[in-house]
């Protein structure tokens, strides 16, 4: 390989190093910038009304987070790589009990479905389309707990929804937990 060819090759390698470094440094913060211009998903635009077409798959909708995501069923934790994971053996809107959903706050190249979960406050609305039926919840508690906290994802006699992810952003130090209770749907 001649000196000039090697030099060109090194220039390409240098560009690759710069691109990879920018990817590592900027990726954790890009969703914060893109959120501003992100469009509200169709189901989140009008949660007060019944949508014209109900999603065939079980779907989680959180307007405050501009989130509309399919709820994935799976036996192990790697289902998290697909998006929102319905933890096995927890409740559901039709069966009752405590329905527990989990998802990533941030991951390189994977679905960071709950990146904006820190925006959720008490009183915010959450909608779950389950078996083509709409179920509405209202956030009652927003908690930050260590991973060792017990009892938060246990089953309850009453129907409720628990969603959890990691916090602070880009770390897994604590868990950000959203507890929501069902509210009756007013059909127009």
């Amino acid at each position, binding site marked *: 390989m001649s000196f000039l060819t090697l030099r060109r090759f*090194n220039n390409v*390698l240098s560009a690759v*190093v710069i691109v990879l470094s920018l990817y590592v440094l900027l990726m954790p913060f890009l969703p914060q910038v893109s959120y501003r211009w992100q469009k509200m998903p169709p189901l989140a635009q009008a949660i007060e009304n019944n949508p014209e077409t109900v999603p065939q798959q079980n779907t989680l909708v959180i307007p405050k987070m501009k989130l509309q995501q399919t709820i994935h069923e799976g036996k192990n*934790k790697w289902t*998290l790589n697909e998006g929102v994971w319905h933890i096995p053996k927890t409740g559901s809107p039709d069966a009752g009990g405590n329905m527990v959903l989990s998802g990533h706050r941030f*991951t390189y190249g994977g679905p960071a479905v709950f990146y904006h979960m820190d925006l959720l406050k008490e009183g915010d609305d959450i909608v779950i389309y389950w078996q083509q039926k709409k179920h509405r919840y209202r956030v009652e508690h927003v908690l930050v707990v260590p991973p*060792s906290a017990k009892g938060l994802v246990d089953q309850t006699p009453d129907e409720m929804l628990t969603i959890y992810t*990691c916090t602070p952003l880009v770390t897994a130090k604590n868990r950000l937990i959203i507890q929501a209770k069902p509210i009756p749907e007013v059909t127009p």
Partner: protein
Amino acid sequence: MKEWHRTVILVIFIAVLVGLILWARQLPTANLTQGL
């Protein structure tokens, strides 16, 4: 520094960065499911 020395350093740098990204990709899944 000779040109091929630069090549070696850059290749090592890229390998480290790719390794770091791959390691960081599986980290949240491993951590999130711990506890609770």
